[in-house]
């Protein structure tokens, strides 16, 4: 691709203006200066093109060259994504130097050989989504498909054997199909149709799977002030959810955290497929000290990778920590281009860009005809913990699940600090239908009882603060008690626990049933005349420790604890 040559005339941080780039269109990629820093065209006025640079522009001067690449900002998609770590523009960080100085880097993957196994043959019909073959690699089977926009007949298919990413493995008319394809990251990849559906995405986190479940292909947001546990919760989902593939976007967050996530994923076994969890994960790391504008792009790179994997027929989850940093990067650039600020300095297109981001989630029929999904889960970091600030407020309009993290719960070291007052799941109804049809009709009942008891316990706790616990009727004191038990025996779940980091659905059901049975028995006992004070003095430790003391799918151990405790209760009469 030979580009047009322009000249830089203004540089102010990531904002660069250039002239002489005739024919450049919005969102085109332009390379700046001798180091050829990537930048994107964001405004065109007469002769002057405004560019958003994706790297540190120190030393760039008026008069330096600007070369238009004649294509929009795109990501290279191919084998080698799973298990890899990339920056916001999807350039590999594995094999890159210890310090990331601006400018072009060698892509180590460019020379890697991939073993291609053809499935289609010369003369077959080809249209977007048709399988040409597979590539051996780590993790999931990598499927080579006819890319969007190519149709006709396969004129040639390569024999089985090693190929680099750029080498063609098939030809349809003029179009050469290589192992790696490029896709403009801001444009959703095409599908046949959107599907409805309510299959739950299992997360392994009880508070979510029980109270605020998320469906495959849905969108969820996790707002919470600093230290409330957003990252820990998202990391847990990355580790334990039952998706085929995870795209984890560290957008403007900590380097140490990413190093840690990476190390853990490399050490943990994938309980569903074998291999390491890292092999089903793509990490996109644009930490807070990496260039701010690449942080803005990282979100779109993540979505594009997820869609690429979806197109192969996989259920994928995109995790973005934190979407607030993405929004802030947009705000920063808007202010440098002197756009009229709307709420709190954010550009007026904040709501529409948030909507567009979460709308890339969904359950789809892919071009190949498979059913596959992209679930989007984004952390939100409200400034000052203020849930009415624009990013948090608008995000709530566009997601189906809101998992609000509560500072008071986190302060009391109740983790995950998902609040049962500020959270919701609009998928709960369809998921209830799914459980009912799949032989666990009790899920609906358990969920409803737990929610009702929590709400009632909260109401009574407020009352007790005014009048004192002892002024409440015994039955109500039992509700306060079960509120405690639900929180401590069911909802709390430590990410650092060996047994309890994830929890299978049957164990979850057993824990909830144990608490509810104990509650029913307590209510019975106080109506039979046992004093509420005596009930409150009972040592509930066996029940409280059941989640920690038994393996993540050990139902029997939970039942034994329940029986043990019921025995103690029966001794009270």
């Amino acid at each position, binding site marked *: 691709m030979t580009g047009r040559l322009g000249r830089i005339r*203004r540089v102010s941080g990531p904002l660069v203006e250039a002239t002489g780039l005739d024919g450049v269109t919005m969102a085109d990629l332009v390379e700046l200066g001798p180091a050829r820093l990537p930048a994107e065209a964001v405004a065109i006025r007469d002769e002057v093109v405004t560019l958003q640079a994706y790297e540190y*522009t*120190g*030393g760039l001067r008026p008069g330096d060259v600007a070369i238009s690449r004649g294509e929009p900002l795109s990501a290279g998609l191919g084998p080698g994504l799973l298990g890899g770590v990339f920056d916001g523009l999807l350039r590999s960080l594995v094999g890159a*130097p*210890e310090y990331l100085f601006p400018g072009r880097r060698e892509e180590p993957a460019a020379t890697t050989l991939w073993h291609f196994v053809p499935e289609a043959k010369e003369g077959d019909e080809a249209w977007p989504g048709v399988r040409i073959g597979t590539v051996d690699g780590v993790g999931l089977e990598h499927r080579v498909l006819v890319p969007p926009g190519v149709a006709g007949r396969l004129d040639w298919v390569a024999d089985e054997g090693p190929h680099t990413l750029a080498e063609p493995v098939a030809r349809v008319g003029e179009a050469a199909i290589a192992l790696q394809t490029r896709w403009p990251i801001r444009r959703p990849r095409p599908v046949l149709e959107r599907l409805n559906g309510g299959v739950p995405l299992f997360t392994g986190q009880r508070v979510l799977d029980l109270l605020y479940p998320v469906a495959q292909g849905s969108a969820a947001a996790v707002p919470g002030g600093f230290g409330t546990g957003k990252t820990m919760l998202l990391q847990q989902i990355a580790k334990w959810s039952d998706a085929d593939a995870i795209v984890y976007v560290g957008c403007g967050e900590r380097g140490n955290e990413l190093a840690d996530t990476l*190390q853990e994923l490399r050490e943990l076994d994938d309980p569903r497929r074998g291999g390491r969890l890292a092999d089903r994960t793509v990490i996109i790391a644009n930490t807070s000290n990496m260039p701010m504008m690449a942080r803005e792009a990282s979100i779109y790179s993540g979505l594009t990778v997820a869609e690429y994997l979806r197109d192969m027929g996989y259920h994928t989850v995109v995790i973005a920590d934190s979407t607030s940093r993405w929004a802030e990067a947009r705000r920063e650039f808007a202010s440098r281009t002197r756009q009229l600020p709307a709420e709190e300095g954010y550009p007026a297109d904040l709501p529409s860009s948030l909507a567009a981001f979460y709308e890339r989630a969904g359950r789809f029929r892919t071009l190949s005809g498979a059913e596959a999904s992209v679930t989007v889960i984004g952390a939100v970091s409200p400034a000052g913990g203020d849930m009415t600030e624009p990013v948090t407020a608008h995000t709530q309009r566009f997601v189906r699940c809101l998992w609000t993290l509560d500072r008071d719960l986190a302060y009391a070291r109740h983790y995950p600090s998902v609040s049962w007052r500020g959270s919701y799941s609009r998928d709960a109804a369809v998921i209830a239908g799914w459980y009912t049809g799949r032989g666990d009709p009790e899920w609906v009942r358990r969920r409803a009882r737990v929610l009702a008891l929590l709400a009632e316990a909260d109401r009574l706790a407020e009352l007790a603060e005014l009048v004192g616990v002892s002024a409440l009727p015994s039955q109500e004191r039992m509700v306060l008690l079960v509120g405690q038990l639900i929180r401590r025996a069911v909802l709390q779940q430590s990410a650092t626990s060996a047994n309890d980091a994830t929890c299978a659905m049957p164990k979850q059901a057993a824990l909830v049933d144990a608490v509810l049975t104990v509650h029913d028995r307590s209510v019975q006992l106080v109506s039979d005349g046992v004093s509420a004070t005596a009930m409150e003095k009972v040592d509930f430790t066996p029940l409280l420790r059941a989640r920690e003391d038994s393996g993540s799918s050990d139902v029997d151990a939970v039942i034994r604890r329940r029986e043990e405790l019921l025995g103690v209760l029966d001794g009270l009469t």
Partner: protein
Amino acid sequence: MTPPTQLEFCDVRQVVGPLVVLKRVEGVGWDEFAQVRLPSGETRQGLVLEVDEDTAVVQILQGTQGIGLSGVRLAFEGRPLHIPVGEGWLGRVCDGLGQPRDGGPPVFGETLRPVAGAPMNPVARATPSEPVLTGVSAIDALTTLVRGQKLPIFSVAGLPHLELATQIAAQAHAGDEPFKVVFAGMGLSHPDAAAVRDVLEERAAAGELTLFLNTADDPVIERVLTPRLALTVAEYLAFVRGQHVLVVVADMTSYAEAVREVSAARGEVPGRRAYPGYLYSDLASLYERCGRIAGRPGSVTLVPVLTMPGGDITHPVPDLTGYITEGQIVLSRSLHERGIFPPVDVLGSLSRLMRKGAGPGRTRPEHVDLAAQLVAALARSGQAADLAELVGAAALTETDRRYLGFAKVFEGTFLRQRIDEARTLDQTLDLAWQVISMLPRRELAMLDHEALDSHYREVVPDGASP
């Protein structure tokens, strides 16, 4: 090291706040460093904030006092600010821009490095995994500082945060491994600066410390560079020289105010409390410079100190800091008023990396559980104290009274420490056991039997049943 070729210009058209707008400029790049010569012969330093055709906007670090439209010459170095780095910094006391304040010669280095640094490749990082011991019980036991961590101290005006930060800088060590300290003070009063120098004297004399001091009457804008100099020196000592380096910067609120002043002079769209929208990224570009690199021996650990204006933790400086750092140590006014030093609010404080740096093989096997138990017991004591205020201590259950007694001893013997008292880790943890032994054993569900058997010695207060 050939000095870079310089380009000189003198057509000043505007002077606004700390900024100078220069015309008829050619070949100058964004973020370049400039030497500014005033007609009086005085020299200052500047940074290029924007270049637009033949115009450059330059921020003058020492302020624009005395600069007019004529007679000023700006010489551009063709690259961002570099400083010499190396062991020559150790034992030195400098101002906020690295000029000697100790009467010694200018610092020469082994090589030059850009003060802005470059982002560390997250894949090249090694996870922090060993402690930095500070000799302060509240920190070592309950919010363990880990090599490569960033752990700020959140305080309010009037509390002894500078004393605590200085104590940490004076006492911290990494066991037998080589350890150095870089202390950067910004906006300190002269008595404070003198006190810091005094306490750190010994460490400086031992060649283990570099001190950057920007006092309250020094130019405000130079504070924008002070932490960057400190981190640049630290990075080299850590990752080239294999040292464990602790960087203490106080007070980050003064730093953020300098950033805000530059932003206002540029007429940028103000964000919360008029701080610029990029404050998060700006703070991150400092805080994220700490860490470890896989395969290299050293580490950079960062303890920023900041005062929360009006004690408000939602103020942008503590809020954005909390979003970047790995936990926080919060100081409490009420503890301070009760005469307790260091006044660490244990419940509000958290070291997110503690699990990585404490426990078996790192400190002592029971350390993490003991800390969790102490924190849980303090939370429970707080509830008991609230209750006692409502109904009177006499109406409390015996267990609750034991909790009240525990909290008192905790504050009086464990938390409270002399300002020059360095406790070993064993002293700290033994003290913790002594304090937790004020509670009945049945209350200590977070500790395992083995640990309890070997360390727990119940103390039964007079008049209570064991």
